[in-house]
């Protein structure tokens, strides 16, 4: 990066810049918007292909598994006639392509079907699990892990090689290397049973009470996520702090705030955004464990129950929602990276 890029901007109004400069800026902005729109369109197209492949694979895996849903529905006392009637009721004996077409054509209209086990629309159950547990848990965990992880990474990078750096890295690594269920058990015992500060069981009765119930699950996941977030941000911050631009800016007397915002953070942004996206994807798998530990009726628990009972519509619905979420996160990450880093934009324009 050139030295000029860290110059403090000279105060200049748009009017003072003249009509040509204004047109140029508008043209640049328009080309950026077009570029981003193109990227989104391409990614969405790729996402649709990915989703199609995911739905086909999940569908095939479910049907390849032994033991159909009628086993879980009717139980051990079932009669052969009853099992046959249930298979007929849910059209489980239709050819697989017919079953897949029925599913995918309904899904495209927003109808994910009705759960065999829950007797309610899959969308309702997923919506309840997402809004009641999973989304609040992801948001709390994600923001906390990023804020604390990036902060600790920055402190560590500034103090690299010193006792504070080693302490931060050491503690976060210990937290990350402990199995999540062990961390959850320890946290539940200390904060739930001994100190009785927070509940460690269930999701509460909604609103603030649910947030209160999610404190310990979120803490458990944050501890696991903190090490990697801290390490990633520490490494990137340390790289930037060693670059010439940082030394020159400091020598020129640029304010610490501007140095952090314009040099350190901006130059680390792409890595941090990419990592933030990865954290969300990683959280989705961690959720399954943490929801079990804290008996939370979220999307992870729903998926485990659905797989155990071969609740085909529910398994398909949940995996589709997760796949859509991952595709969307990937697109958002790409777009944000393009916005914050002009080098990526130029590279893409050059490719175009």
């Amino acid at each position, binding site marked *: 990066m050139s030295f000029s890029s860290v110059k403090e901007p000279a105060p200049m109004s748009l009017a003072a810049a003249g009509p040509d400069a204004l047109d140029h800026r508008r043209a640049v902005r328009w080309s950026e918007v077009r570029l981003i729109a193109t990227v989104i369109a391409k990614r969405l197209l790729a996402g649709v292909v990915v989703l199609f492949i995911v739905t086909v694979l999940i569908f095939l895996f479910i049907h390849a*598994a*032994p*033991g*159909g849903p009628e*086993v*879980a*529905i*009717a*139980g*051990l*006392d*079932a*009669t052969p*006639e*009853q*099992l046959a*009637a*249930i298979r*007929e*009721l849910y059209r489980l004996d239709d050819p697989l392509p017919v079953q897949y077409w029925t599913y995918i054509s309904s899904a495209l209209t927003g109808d994910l079907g009705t*759960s065999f*086990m*829950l*007797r*309610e629309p899959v969308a*309702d*159950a997923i919506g*309840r699990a997402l809004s009641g547990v999973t989304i609040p848990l992801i948001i709390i965990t994600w923001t906390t892990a990023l804020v604390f992880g990036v902060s600790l990474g920055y402190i560590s990078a500034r103090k690299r090689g010193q006792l504070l750096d080693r302490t931060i890295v050491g503690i976060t690594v210990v937290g990350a290397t402990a199995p999540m*269920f062990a961390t959850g*058990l320890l946290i*539940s*015992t200390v904060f739930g*049973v001994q100190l*009785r*500060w*927070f*509940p*460690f*069981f*269930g*999701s*509460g*009765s909604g*609103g*603030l*009470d649910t*947030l*209160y119930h999610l*404190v310990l699950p979120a803490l458990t996941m944050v501890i696991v996520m903190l090490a990697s977030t801290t390490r990633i941000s520490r490494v990137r911050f340390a790289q930037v702090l060693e670059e010439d631009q940082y030394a020159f800016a400091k020598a020129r007397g640029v304010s610490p705030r501007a140095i952090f915002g314009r040099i350190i953070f901006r130059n680390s942004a792409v890595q941090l955004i990419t990592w933030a996206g990865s954290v969300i994807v990683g959280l989705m798998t961690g959720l399954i464990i943490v929801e*079990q*530990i*804290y*008996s*939370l*009726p979220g999307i992870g*628990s729903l998926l485990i*129950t659905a797989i*155990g*009972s*071969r609740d085909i519509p529910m398994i398909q619905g949940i995996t589709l929602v997760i796949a859509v979420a991952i595709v969307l996160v990937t697109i958002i990450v790409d777009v944000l990276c393009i916005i914050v880093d002009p080098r990526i934009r130029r590279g893409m324009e050059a490719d175009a």
Partner: protein
Amino acid sequence: MSQPNQRRRRRSVGAALIALTLITATGCASSGEAAPGDSSLDVIFPILRPTLDVRDNAAQTLGIQLLVNEPLFVYTPDGEFVPRLAESVEQPDPLTFVYTLRDVTFSDGTPLTADDVVYTFDLHRDPESTSVMARYWGAVESVEATGEDEVTVKLSASDPEWPYTVAKTGIVSAAYYEANGGQAGTPGAPQIGTGPYVVDEFKASAEVDLVRNPSYWGEEAPYESIAFTAPKDDNSRLLALQSGNYDALLLPPLSQVKALSAVPGYVASEITDTSTYRINFDLTKPPFDELAVRQAISHAVDRDAIIGAVFNDHAEPADALVPPPILEVAGEPGPVAEAYDGFARDFDLDLDQAREYLAQSSVPDGFSFTVPVQQSDPAQTLIAQIVAQSLAEIGVDMTLAPLDDNTYIQQVYFDKDIDGLSIDSWSAGSPEPAGMLFNAYTPGIFSNVSQLDSAAVAAGLAEYRELPVDSAERQPLLLDVLTEIHAERPTVPLLYPNLVFFTAEDTTVSGLNGFWWLSPLYEIIAPAS
């Protein structure tokens, strides 16, 4: 016992605390003041079902369902059928039952009608029913509303289990079911009934919160609310009890009883359960089709080692499939004990005898096979490991194949696609003394894992079906049937596990038996005062 709304108050305090907590990272729990007779019962339950639909609940979870949806008759711990929604029942002939209904209303204010009862019964007996209790309705020929408050049920054949089926069937509102388009009993349309409690909140497979039905027609229940939660693993269960937030923990895994007993403030109530862990031989699969092989295995299995190592002695050795207390309903304990002692001799651990039997078979040098085990039941895996060690002593090589529940049920019960030996736990579906035998040894049904097809057994059970409920011949006949079964050795009964309730010291437990779920829970776990 949790104090009045203590749980809710703790929640609201907690909710208020969260703002402070998130900022200051400090907080504290709170407790409320008690008001006499205004308490809650918070229960840690082993498992909760995905819905409160009457078609989806059986056995233990009926203990919750029947608090909301009352049956026509209640089966009491004393073994009596007491009228509940029915005022009376008459039998103009042995196969016809005429129920006269009580004049009561559902919790939404609509009256209970004969049509509601017919609708409920049809939910189970419809040929396309998904009901887990559908099998018990096989003998019902017709159900008709024969008056505004009268329902007539006709059976096609004598069915000793019918009174128990009635006691297990909570009555639903037909109008509510129709209005909710098949979603009654889900979180979006929680169940309604005539019972002493109504559903306050339901989270599928996770939580059921009940509160008193303010318009209940009968005597007011002692608890203002009853809440059920189901931990998903052993650690959560232990921590939950240690937290002191719960009044009772029902049916923990027996391997965990020792750890749970160390939690102060709780009393353990323990009785023999009405289920049996057993080894099943598929009589159609070689070499298990040979009696000598089955006898060899019967003498090779160390049942005491299993009871000690897997159940920490919270179980009794089993000498036949049916636990003795079930047979004692139909007579005196003495003849049962005498017959069972006779069976026991053929299950004594005696490796020399086992080798002798094996030497008489077509596989004198032993053989190899794979046994499926259910991953969800750790006890089953441990039992199988001990059995494998025992069988290795006589040259039989048994390999374990862990399976998830659905695959296990499909392979073992429905497809019978196994090498010929399985290990499972089988529970009595009702207090009917012959119920387990009907289930396990009726030719052609899924649950006849051993595929026993004995004319003598079938004739004995058929004769039993025709006997009046109060006949003195019932118990001797069942013991004869058991003797016939024993001669074939389709099963090695291993043990009867215990049933354990942990309850807070300020409650009392009474009337606890293997069919506790047929009685209102608040009568079994009552406030001490």
